[in-house]
């Protein structure tokens, strides 16, 4: 509404609207009594309503909450109006971001009047969209709607129009749009300040004007619908975002895991005698973890299984710093060479340390050669001071070493290796982990020689795992 009081024509126009609306007010009786004889803006009496709007609205707003897709809700609204109000046609236009316009989503009505779904749109420069976009446009009636009869009446008001040629153009533009849509009534759907859509109504089949009660009904329905639509859109957007983030995370995660696998493979490839070692150790670790449900230490990891998998894949990454002649040596290592090999856990931790995302993995890699009784390296940690994942890797690592051929010794039989694990359970290894390993073995989850050993026993013997 314009506040420019110097322009008398605006006041007159204002007056014209106010008078029309107040005549509606006057027509509503305060207490029941006789059915209200509602008078429309132009003095024609309107018969009482048959539809119980209040109960309909209550039912509608309850139902709306259940709609997850705005389109379904709109279909329900359009169908209800069409079935119960007897209008020539009903249509709903909804804002579509990708089309930058209001697209016809649903329509019902008589043949030829029903606008085919998806056939038309109103762009943002459309006069109807424009007036609804500014909520306080003077062409909008007090109920918040635009009515064809009002527009036509405005166009006939020569007194005002002579002084306001612009107004004439606006009214004419609106009339043209309503003619195109054959709309007698347009109801906006707002959410906050955004125009989400417009409800278009044709004429009543009876040829009567819409009553004030009906107008109020449409406006309430439109507002409730707007709320439901906005919620549904919000949820839809949110779900989409969640999916996107999930995808992104999964992609990054895959890259991360595959990088770790590639790195592990590179290390395995450098040491021909431990071919497939990393893969087997990782599988053993995951099998052990399955039997560890309820171990409280697992809860200290942000993501236990993932940390375990990555730590297992990378546990020998430090071997990159061990000279080839030691790794490839086919005879027993000298004590000096063995000292050199022992450095691999520290080297591994040093290599991985700058990768912030690895978090706990670094200390697990550093500690995977520690012994439960404190006799391991590099820090001589003892018992539960050794992080859980490192204790798991230690068992898996040792079992694979025992059951694989090495240049300097023949592999142990599986039964023999299991006995050895039991023997050093509580000294070299955490007994809880050994038990979990044995349980996993019994269940058939420890698959030894999933891949055939490529390197055969060459007769030497030694023990420097």
């Amino acid at each position, binding site marked *: 509404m314009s506040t420019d009081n110097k322009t008398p024509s605006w006041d007159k126009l204002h007056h014209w609207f106010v008078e029309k609306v107040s005549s509606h007010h006057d027509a509503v009786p305060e207490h029941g009594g006789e059915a209200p004889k509602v008078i429309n803006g132009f003095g024609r009496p309107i018969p009482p309503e048959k539809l119980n709007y209040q109960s309909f609205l209550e039912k509608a707003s309850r139902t709306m909450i259940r709609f997850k897709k705005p389109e379904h809700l709109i279909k329900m609204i359009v169908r209800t109006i069409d079935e119960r109000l007897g209008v020539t046609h009903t249509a709903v236009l909804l804002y579509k971001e990708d*089309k930058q*316009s209001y*697209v*016809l989503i649903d329509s019902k009505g008589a*043949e*030829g*009047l*029903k*606008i*085919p*779904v*998806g*056939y*038309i*749109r*109103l*762009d943002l420069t*459309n006069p109807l969209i424009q007036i609804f976009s500014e909520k306080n446009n003077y062409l909008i009636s007090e109920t918040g709607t635009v009515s064809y009869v009002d527009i036509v009446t405005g166009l006939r008001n020569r007194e005002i129009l002579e002084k306001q040629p612009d107004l004439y153009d606006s009214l004419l533009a609106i009339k*043209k749009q309503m003619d*195109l*849509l054959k709309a007698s009534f347009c109801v906006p759907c707002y959410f906050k300040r955004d125009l989400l859509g417009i409800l278009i109504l044709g004429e009543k089949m009876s040829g009567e004007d819409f009553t004030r009660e009906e107008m109020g009904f449409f406006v309430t329905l439109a507002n409730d619908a707007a709320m439901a639509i906005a919620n549904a859109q919000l949820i839809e957007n949110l779900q989409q975002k969640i999916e996107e983030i999930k995808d992104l995370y999964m992609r990054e995660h895959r890259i991360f895991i595959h990088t770790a696998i590639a790195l592990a493979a590179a290390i395995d490839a450098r040491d021909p005698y431990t071919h497939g070692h990393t893969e087997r150790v990782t599988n053993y670790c995951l099998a052990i973890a399955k039997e560890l449900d309820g171990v409280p230490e697992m809860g200290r990891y942000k993501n236990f299984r993932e940390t375990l998998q990555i730590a297992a894949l990378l546990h020998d990454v430090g071997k990159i710093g061990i000279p080839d002649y030691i790794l490839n040596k086919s005879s027993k290592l000298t004590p000096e060479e063995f000292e050199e090999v022992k450095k691999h856990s520290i080297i591994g931790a040093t290599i991985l340390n700058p990768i912030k995302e690895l978090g706990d993995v670094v200390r697990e890699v550093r500690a995977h050669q520690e012994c439960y009784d404190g006799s391991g390296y590099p820090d001589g940690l003892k018992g539960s001071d050794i992080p859980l994942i490192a204790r798991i890797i230690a068992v898996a690592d040792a079992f694979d070493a025992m059951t694989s051929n090495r240049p300097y010794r023949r592999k142990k039989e599986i039964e023999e290796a299991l006995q050895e694990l039991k023997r050093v359970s509580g000294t070299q290894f955490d007994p809880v982990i050994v038990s979990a390993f044995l349980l996993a073995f019994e269940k058939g989850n420890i698959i030894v020689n999933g891949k055939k050993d490529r390197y055969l026993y060459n007769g030497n013997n030694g023990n420097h795992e």
Partner: protein
Amino acid sequence: MRKLLVVDDEHDICDFVKNFFGERGFQVFTALNGDEALALVKKEKPEIVLLDIKMNGMDGIATLKHLKAIDRNIKVIMVTAMEDQDKMNEACRLGACEYITKPLILDHLEQTVEKILK
């Protein structure tokens, strides 16, 4: 009276366009497929055709070819749901005057028809 033919396999669209242009002083014929369209062009000789591209059976492009064979001067506006540049170019080559993308703006539809008939 100016004669307009609308060809669309959607009943609602035919009805709507018939009503819309009927009120704007046209005699409107409707065809739900290419064959019906060709028969109507022969019989009624419309000046202008609104032709949907994507139709079952004979599609808009094929229909256009046949329409032009019957009446070289017939004016055709292609209507399409998706902007397919290849199809547009082909339609243009075959002599379509204009194309309109769905969802369309009614003003624009009216203006395009008027412009072409001038």
